[in-house]
Every structure is written in structure tokens, then in C-alpha cells.
């Protein structure tokens, strides 16, 4: 259990800091609300409009984000393979090709279903 003591201390410190700063700012910070401040936060751009009673639910950002994650994770899995490339030998190469092949299938699907076109 001793090995975990530093982690627990760090956890406690982190929690204490978060609670301390949130409480402090809620007492000391000035509160001047305007329309922009009350809007949902979307990276500084105007919140995407949602037409009432019809129209597409805008999922463009979501699609881009999903695609990014798919290929990002693919690269993440390539790293450990690249590090142990010599030890994994032919076995690793074939397994990795199969893995990249399945991600390619995803890519083909997204491409054919026009997921790569913005409009």
C-alpha cells in the first residue's frame, strides 16, 4: 500500500486545489453576465443553430471528430508496434496489416458515404 501513498497524496492535493479555486472564484470573481456569456460555449464561434420542428440535426463537427479519433487511434496502435518491430517479426507485420486493412474498410465506407465532404 505504501507504493500508492504518493498517488493518494497527489489525488488529495488535486481535489483540494480544484475545490479551493472553484469556491474562491465563486466568492471573489465579479459577475457581469451578457448574452454571449450565457450562450453555450462552442470554441468562440456562434453556436450552431438548431431549426425548430424540422431540418437536419447538424452533426458535421461530430463526424469530423469521430474520423479524427479513428485515425488517431490507428496511429496510437502503430507506435508500440514500431518500437518492438524487430521482435514482433513477420507475425507482427501480418497482424498490423490486418489491423490497417480493417481501418481501410472504415475509410472506404466513410468515403463512399460522402463523410469526407463538408457540404
Amino acid at each position, binding site marked *: 500500500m505504501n507504493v500508492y501513498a504518493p498517488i493518494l497524496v497527489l489525488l488529495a492535493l488535486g481535489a483540494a486545489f480544484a475545490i479551493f479555486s472553484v469556491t474562491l472564484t465563486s466568492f471573489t470573481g465579479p459577475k457581469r453576465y451578457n448574452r454571449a456569456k450565457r450562450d453555450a460555449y462552442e470554441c468562440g464561434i456562434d453556436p450552431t443553430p438548431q431549426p425548430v420542428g424540422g431540418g437536419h*440535426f447538424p452533426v458535421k463537427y461530430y463526424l469530423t471528430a469521430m474520423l479524427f479519433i479513428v485515425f488517431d487511434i490507428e496511429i496510437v496502435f502503430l507506435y508500440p508496434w514500431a518500437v518492438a518491430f524487430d521482435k514482433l517479426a513477420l*507475425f507482427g507485420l501480418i497482424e498490423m496489416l490486418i489491423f490497417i486493412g480493417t481501418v481501410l474498410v472504415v475509410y472506404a*465506407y466513410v468515403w463512399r458515404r460522402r463523410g469526407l465532404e463538408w457540404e
Partner: protein
Amino acid sequence: MSGVLSASVVADTFTLPTIDYGALAPVLIVAAAAVIGVLVEAFAPRGARRPLQLVLVFGSLIAAFVAVVMHAGIRQLDGGGAVAIDGPGLVLQGAVLLISIVGAMLMAERMVDPAGDAFAARASTLPGSEDERQFSSRGFLQTEIWPLMLFAVTGMLLFPIANDLLLLFVALEVMSLPLYLLVGMARRRRLLSQEAALKYFILGSFSSAFFLFGSALLYGYSGSIKFGKIAEAIAGNPGQNMLILVGVGMVAVGLLFKIGAAPFHQWTPDVYQGAPTPVTAFMAAAVKVAAFGAILRVFYVIFGGLRWDWQPMLWVIAILTMLIGAIVAVTQTDVKRMLAYSSIAQAGFILLGVIAANPAGLRGAIFYLVAYAFTTLGTFAVVTLVRDSTGEATHLSKWAGLAKTSPLTATVFAIFLLSLAGIPLTSGFIGKFAVFTAAIEAGAMPLVIVALFASLIAAFVYGRVIVLMFFADPPADPPAVVVPSAFTTLAIAISVAVTVVLGIIPQPFLTLLEQAGVFIR
């Protein structure tokens, strides 16, 4: 410094895992069919997709089942100990495949809903919008459901044979993610369906996080993710340790969520009600089999030595699950919600087999699972047939006097309900008998008494529906019982056959389970 040291130790002991692809054939066949299914979605013309997907789904599921049957008798660790192929694992895989075949039949049904099948023409359209109306009026069918289903089956096939914590987690996610999507794709009552999908997804992710955290603690305790190694570490260190106990608890939360055991059952009624009924049937049956397979393996193989620590925990959970499921089912007025609560109660009964922690308990639990799965497939299949102008007539008041308009449907539904209640000559009775005797053998008499009490309450619930169907007067606007295509008819026929045959001549299946033996360690 220590990091460098351990890195060199790892480098010295590194051995390539050997994978016997033949032994993994069932999983690989289904996974490959799912990937080909995605390619079909990408390149095949719209009209050709459904027939191609159906050939892929049924072809791969049947081929995988043949592969499982051919593997009978294999007992080995594979993939460097990550996969355990043994008797119980193979039986569970075979059960998952048969259930999936019947489930796929229900999903393929196109005759009961005049608008098409049970799935939204395009799930991304806003419910009630012009786009949605256009897509459904043009008669589009959603065919992505088929690859999604096959991916889910891939996860379910890996789940009961996974022999290390990481693979178990991957299997859990491969099984769950497609199901979250399938739940949100109902053609009718779209908002309810989407709400169910979101609830299932958020709560499911939460339980996965619990599972992962627990796995990390078990790894921290034993230094390995392999089930066998963790069991050795536990056997080597008698006495209690917070790390291992918290780890066991958190892994258990993740797995118990999937079977809908109380207090992790809250998602079950909403999801079972909101999901398209064929998907409800498929997941209520197959997920339970796969997840209970994993629970049985984890508690028998890893935590066998800690029996005295986890048994009290599971006692509480089993009692809560049985009583909450049975008692809350009494108050339900929607047939899908009632069946959801009944499935919670059934999970509690099956937990008795896990708690027994002996070979008889293992056999009883697997028997019960198979019996329950086919009965459940049948009940939800019947639910898809009773319809009015808005879709399925799920309110129980609409089911009054069903025997007068459609005696055959009412009789079939009554057979399933009697099996769920555990009446002799049905599979449910043999299942209950098997787990109860195993639990008594393990000295869990008080638990069996609670289980009998819960069975009584549940029997009242099922009996009430039977009385309603046969002796009550039909409502002013009775629902119509539609005539389905061969798909649903065959699915219901198989379910009835399994329910009755396992109830009257259970011995062949019990013998098979006895030959299957216990989990490999």
C-alpha cells in the same frame, strides 16, 4: 531507474504469442463477415444490400456454429493465454450463435410493419421532420443494422472465452457499442428509442469505466492481466487485501451491469422498451448468455480462491435482483417493461448458479441461460405481432381477450410465460430446479427460500397476463395480430420447440453440459 530495470526484464522474457487461428475460427468468421458487410454498405447498390447482408449474416452465423461444433472436445489456452477454449466456453459460444440466428430472423422480418421493417429508414433524421417522412415514404430500409449486429456477435463470442482482463474489456466494448446504436434505431416511437440509446450508452460507459478501474487494481495486485496468474497471486497471498477486494468489486460492477442485476438494473426497462423489439429480443437473450459466461469464468477461475469474500456480496445482489425484478414487474402496464423486469428477476435466479461456485452450479446456470434465452426470444417475437395503427400495442390492456381473436398467438405466449414462471414440462422449470439444487448443495438454503418466494411473485405476474389473455373481454378497439413472414414464424417455432423439448427431455443437453466439464484454469 526501476523503469529501466523492468524494461530490460520485459525485453529478456519477451516471447511471441502463438495464435491457433483454427481454434478462433468462430470469432474470426463472424468478424470477417461483419467487415465484408461494411464493404457491402460502401460499394453495393442500394437494392442489392439487403439480400447480400442476409446471405452474409446467416451464412457466417451458421458457418461459425459448425466451427464451434467441430471444436467440441478442445481444451486449450490460446494466444499466449489470452483466450481459453474449453467445454463451457464452446457451449456458450454455440448458444450465442443459435440465439443470434433466431434474433437475425426477427430483425429480417418485413411483413409485420406496413412501412417496412422495425428500423428507422435513416436513423440520423430528426424525429417528426420532413426528411424522416421522405425517407420512410420512399421505402428505404436500414441495412447497416446487419454489420452492426455481426460486430456485436463477435464481441459476444469473445466474451465467454476471454481469459485475460484486457481481452475481456475489448470484447465487452465490441459487444456493447453496436448494441447502443441498434437500440436507437426503432422506426416507431423514435424519441423513446433515442432516449433509450443515450441512457444505455452513458450508463454502459460508466460501468465500463468501473470495470477498467477494477482491472487496473487487479493488475496492481497481481502484476498480470491473465486470469490464471491473478488466481495464482490470490492463492499465494492468503488474507485480505484492500486492493484485490476493491478490484473484485469494481470488475463485478462492470459485468453485473451487463446482465441487469440490481442495483445496476435501472437501464433495463427503458432500454428494453425503447429498442426496436427484434433488437430487444436479441440483446435480452444473447447479451445475458455472453455476460453470464464471462461472469461465471471470472468468478470461477480468477476469484475462486476468494469465494468467502465475494459470496456475501453476490448474496445481497442476487436477493435484491430477484425481489426488485419480481415485485416491480407486478406494477407494470406495458408488456415490454413487464418482460424487462421479469428478465431482471431471471438474472437473479441465474446468479444462484454463480454463487453456488460448484460444477453443478455452472451446469445449472448455463442450462438456465439457454432456456431463458429462447423463451425470451419467443416472448418478444410475439410482442412484435400484436399491433394497432400506431405500431406495436404494448399496453397490457390491449392484450385482454387476445385468445378470442387469435387463440394460437395467445397459447404460444402462454407457453413462454409458463416457462418463465418455471412450471413443470417447460425449460424454465428444469433451469430453476438445476440452479436451486446446486445452490442447496453449496449451502445457500436461505437464498433458495428467497428465490422460491420471488418465483411465486413472478408466477403471479405471468399468471395475471395469461388470465387477461384468456378470460378477459377484449377492449373496444382490439389490436390486430398480423401474419408474419416465414422469418418470424420460424423464429417463434424454434423458440417454442426449444422451450418444450428442454422441458420434457432435458437429459441430452444436461449430458452435453456434463461432458463440457468446467472452465480451464
